[in-house]
């Protein structure tokens, strides 16, 4: 295709992506270097029946004016990155010199909001992703060996947790797990503890969120693996059978190697999606025990305590860096794989 024609075909798509994906990444960075204006204060003489007093008040007019002149706020350099709510460099240094051992240091670090969110995000990503792969693979093997007439309905039901809106799916589970819901009361009965509440314990909240994550994503892995199983070469399987390979050996040495490219694909998608975990925390109102990077950005923007563009920007930039680190190995692999094929 001629370069000119290519350009015109791709233009509309490219323009929207540049305007609403590339530029925001830049603007987020600029935002993160600025900080909200402090309110302009003025001294007012307040005279009452008991004499006059000097009072400090917020000069609303001047505050509004300065905000209009510089909507971005005051230039702050990397100050926002270093403060307590983000990388907390000075707090970390203090914790490091004060702590006698690693455990103390880690628990102090965990009290800083950014590291708290990072801890949950990473745990969630690296626990959910492998479990999704495993469960998806097992379901695919199971469904694949069902009689034909049962496959369709099973796939239909299996798709539901993935297709449903994440916020809604997690709400549905949350209501069931509520102390007054069906699963919650079952658990209370099972452990014979009428006060057992999954919401009250941070550990249980983490487990709950992770279970939701697996429930939500396993269908995706299942479908991809299931499709892969349909293309396993029957010749190779038969050859393995003739050579006396057991069922397990056939799965291990023929089916699994055939599915390796799919594992890479699912990993890539799952890492991207799990790293931005956000909706379940809103649905489960879990912010007291678990926050994620996406959640703290959302909280800065729409948390009800006002909007902090600088702070949200700094966390966003750090999150984007995190995504980059996460993606590099997979990207390099895709890069190599595609180089041979496309070009």
């Amino acid at each position, binding site marked *: 295709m001629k370069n000119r024609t290519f350009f015109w075909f*791709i233009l509309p798509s*490219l323009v929207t992506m540049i305007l*609403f994906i590339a530029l925001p990444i830049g603007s987020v960075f600029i935002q993160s270097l600025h900080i909200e204006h402090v309110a302009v204060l003025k001294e007012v003489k307040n005279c009452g029946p008991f004499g006059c007093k000097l009072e400090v008040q917020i000069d609303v007019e001047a505050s509004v004016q300065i905000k209009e002149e510089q909507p971005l706020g005051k230039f702050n350099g990397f100050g926002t990155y270093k403060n307590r709510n983000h990388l907390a460099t000075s707090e970390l240094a203090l914790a490091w010199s004060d702590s006698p051992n690693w455990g103390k240091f880690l628990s102090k670090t965990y009290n800083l909001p950014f590291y708290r969110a990072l801890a949950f995000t990473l745990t969630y990503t690296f626990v959910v992703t492998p479990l999704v792969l495993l469960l998806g693979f097992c379901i695919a093997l199971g469904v694949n060996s069902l009689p034909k007439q049962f496959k369709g309905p099973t796939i239909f039901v299996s798709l539901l947790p993935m297709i449903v*809106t994440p916020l809604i799916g997690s*709400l549905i589970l949350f209501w069931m797990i509520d102390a007054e819901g069906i699963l919650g009361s079952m658990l209370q009965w099972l452990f014979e503890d009428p006060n057992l509440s999954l919401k009250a314990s941070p550990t249980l909240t983490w487990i709950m969120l992770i279970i939701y994550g697996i429930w939500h994503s396993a269908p995706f892995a299942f479908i991809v693996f299931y499709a892969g199983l349909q293309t396993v070469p029957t010749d190779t399987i038969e050859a393995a059978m003739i050579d006396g390979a057991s069922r397990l050996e056939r799965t291990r040495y023929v089916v699994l190697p055939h599915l390796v490219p*799919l594992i890479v694909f699912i990993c890539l998608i799952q890492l991207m999606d799990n790293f931005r975990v956000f909706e379940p925390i809103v649905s489960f109102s879990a912010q007291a025990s678990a926050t994620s990077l996406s959640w703290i950005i959302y909280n800065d923007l729409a948390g009800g305590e006002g*909007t902090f563009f600088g702070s949200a920007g700094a966390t966003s930039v750090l999150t984007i860096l995190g995504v980059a680190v996460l993606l590099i190995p997979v*990207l390099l692999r895709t890069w190599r794989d595609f180089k041979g094929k496309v070009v």
Partner: protein
Amino acid sequence: MSEIIHRRPWPLNTVIWFFVLCWVFIAGFPFLWTMWGSFKVQGDFFSKADWAYAISGVRTQVETGGAFTGDGYFGAWITKSFWVAALNTMIVVISVVVISLTLGTLGGYALARSGKKYAFYLLMLALVFRAMPHITLVSGYLLPFFEWNLWGHLPTAIIVMVAINQPFTLWMLHSFFLNIPKDLDESAMVDGCTRFQAFRRVIVPVMWPGVVTTGLFSFLLAYNDFTVTATLLSQANQTMVPKIASFLGTTQTEGNVMFAVAAVVSATAPLFLLVMVFQRQIVSGLTTGAVKG
């Protein structure tokens, strides 16, 4: 395959059946349960006395006189005007699907036919864009949108979602177009068509299966979105998902959780229908990216 099934030892067969049935139960039961519960009163669905009330509907009998009640639905749709949100969702979703497919088919076609190095780099770039958490992008929009008075309107949310959707749409349509033989449009061009004419007259008539599948995923993305709609839309323009989220804050204090339950069930119903009708396309769409590389 059938003879292999017969040869499977029965203990293994039992394990497989048990496992699959367990999974089907775990996947499907929450929806069934919530749908059933949405026709009860709060005292039953969130019963302090006995969870089995949700099945028998004891409180529902006492409070409304029947075993089932539509109070939750009436409260959500009429009293809390959920219908406005449903209407907004419809507008947003349809526009997002139509616009992103239009842009995506043009771009995906070009990427599939170019064969140049830069097309490959663009695809990699799209992959990187696809990985960006949506909320980081939104935090870049908010300030400029406030400044230029673009915040809060439906078209703003629509165009943002189209853009966020583009990387995925491009990848998917790109792989569909790769499957349409090159000879088709090239022979049209030999006959004197321009590239665009060849695209319109030869490719467009055969591209619909791919477009429908991609459209389904655009639909799901727009329909399921919470991040963009919750942060970029004003209260009056809210779509269903942020509306449900806002129910949580307000109704739990008023003791009207059932409104939220009813709204959740109403919002899930279209998705059920969608899967029922388009199951084959969804499955094939999920796998094209993977199986064909």
